[in-house]
């Protein structure tokens, strides 16, 4: 286990280089270059705000403020975006890098690490903008904002645990990738992102604890919309689940890493 991390550390240059190159190559042939990195999320925030807060006049039950709904939406959409990017890229990372895996000998765990790092870079940009927006409109939640750190940490752990597990399975059973792509759509809508959990009937709300993402997204919404501390006990529950998923992912990975190259 320790050796694994030492190997990853030895290849930090490769990981950092990869993240940097991916970031650059995304905007290589564009005139505005890195500006698109900012413009894309900015346009999304504007659309959500205009449509839901100004045009549809939606208000959250029990919360005042013009921007309340759009903050609720962004808190869910942006963090969900981080989760979805890590999982969906994690499940394809071994297949996409088959060429590299077959020709070079390097710690293969670099690949999921690169996926996480890339996801975090993209998230940092868009979330930084969102934070600036919160401050500008006077909606900054104050001290509870710090609670985002552990919540996001749990979310990343959950995402990469799931990502590695699916990634290994996907090499041997390509159906996994196809299935999960569809499943992710459903998952988005059974998670209270676009709608607040409070509008659900009582019976369905009782089942929400079965959805770890609902817990995490709701925690983010609690922090960002209400400026309150999240329900730590439920977050801790997901943290345990995430740790278990990571352990499962690593176990699967270590058992089948050798065979994986033969399948690619």
């Amino acid at each position, binding site marked *: 286990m320790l050796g694994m991390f030492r190997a990853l550390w030895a290849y930090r240059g490769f990981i950092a280089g990869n993240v940097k190159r991916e970031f650059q*190559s995304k905007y290589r042939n564009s005139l505005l270059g890195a500006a698109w990195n900012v413009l894309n999320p900015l346009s999304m925030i504007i659309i959500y705000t205009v449509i839901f807060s100004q045009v549809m006049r939606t208000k959250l039950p029990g919360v005042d403020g013009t921007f309340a709904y759009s903050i609720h939406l962004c808190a869910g959409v942006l963090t969900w975006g981080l989760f979805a990017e890590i999982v969906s890229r994690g499940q394809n990372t071994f297949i996409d890098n088959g060429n590299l895996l*077959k020709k070079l*000998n390097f710690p293969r765990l670099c690949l999921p690490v690169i996926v996480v790092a890339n996801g975090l870079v993209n998230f940092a940009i868009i979330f930084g903008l969102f934070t600036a927006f919160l401050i500008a409109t006077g909606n900054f939640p104050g001290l509870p904002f710090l609670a985002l750190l552990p919540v996001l940490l749990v979310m990343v752990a959950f995402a990469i645990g799931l990502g590695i597990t699916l990634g290994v399975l996907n090499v041997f059973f390509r159906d996994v990738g196809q299935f999960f792509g569809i499943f992710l759509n459903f998952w988005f809508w059974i998670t209270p992102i676009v709608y607040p959990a409070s509008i659900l009937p009582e019976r369905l709300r009782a089942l929400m604890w079965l959805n770890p993402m609902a817990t995490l997204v709701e925690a983010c919404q609690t922090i960002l919309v209400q400026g309150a501390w999240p329900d730590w006990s439920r977050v801790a529950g997901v943290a345990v689940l995430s740790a278990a998923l990571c352990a499962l992912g690593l176990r699967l990975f270590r058992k089948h890493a*050798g065979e994986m190259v033969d399948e690619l």
Partner: protein
Amino acid sequence: MGSITANGLGKAYKQYSNHWARLVEWLDPRDKARHALKWVLKDINFHVEPGEAVGVIGVNGAGKSTLLKMITGTTQPSSGSVEVVGRVAALLELGMGFHPEFTGRQNAYMAGQLAGLQEHEIEALMPGVEAFADIGDYFDKPVRIYSSGMQARVAFSVATAVSPDILIIDEALSVGDMAFQAKCMQRMRSLQEQGTTVLFVSHALNQIRQFCSRVLYLSGGGVRAWGEADKVCDLYQNDLSGANNLSVPAVQVKAATAEAPAELARNRERDPDLRKNSVGGDTGGTLDLEFLSFKILDAGGSPTVSCRAGDLLRFQATILANRDVPEGGSVGLLIADKTGYHLMACNTNYYDRHLPALAAGECAYVEWGIRIPFAAGEFRVDSGIKPEPFSAVFYDRVFCAGFFSVVPDVELLKRNFGGYLFVDADIDISADG
């Protein structure tokens, strides 16, 4: 410095009867195997000393690439073990896993990082890499627009930028042009002189003979031969041309009645492989006379595919008359280089020798005894029969009826001889003053 030891090394791929079988195997807690193992390599044993240059040869599918992948560590052995001491740089199947969207320079960076180099170290090496690859502006263009030769140039240049303990090259040079191949051979030679162990897969036997001291010959998933480069290469060439399995079932034909020279072995067996290298098979001849077999023998009369300059080779053709033909036919023998360029013609009519009249069912036997004037190279032999020398019509014609190679003299090799003929020459060198 780098050494490689393989002990009972083997590789098998799992084969499942269907997609569900794998799922069942994964889920079934009883640990029962539901796959068949397909062994591509079995029980490989060898030891490569530090600083040695070793060639790996074998036909396509013999397991060469799998072996190299196990040595590099990208694939796990299924049985046995391979012990590798030292830092390995490998060029497997063209390129080093280059990313098509990144430029050559970025890929070179990435390869350096993968080799565990720090950024400033790569920075310092980059001018050398760029100069050796020698692809001009393309170095800063995406790899996806590279030709395969350009990729090989960058890959080789990167792999050898820092002298590794072990350098593994898998046919990576074959796509490069002549000049680049020569450059690569020079660099490999200089690395080897500095103590790098080189493992080299190639189908260019000349390069192998020239560069490697020992050769590992893989065949059918096992080691066919392991030892001195010259001997193993000879064996490989013999195997390739099928010289070792000439015993083919004979076709029943009437006994020969025509008189043939007494010293000629009268063998009326039809060689089924005779025309396997003739493209299309249809040679456009009338087949009134037809080749039954064509053989290349050494002076002692046994089939051979290699010789040295000045050796006597005997080319034997057996010709069957399917119809009565008048006398006067001539038999052509052309010796060409690998590209088919004619180097030597020995048609029987040049020597005023002609076929006698033959009745249907009779055979004629022709033998050329030739002292080979070539100093080095690989050659192919074409043969044909015409009713008379100026006729446009052939009785029969066989392309690539045989192959042979001339093993160059060691003294010439050491002087990097490049040519087919070596002749005596008076050379005078003078200088000013």
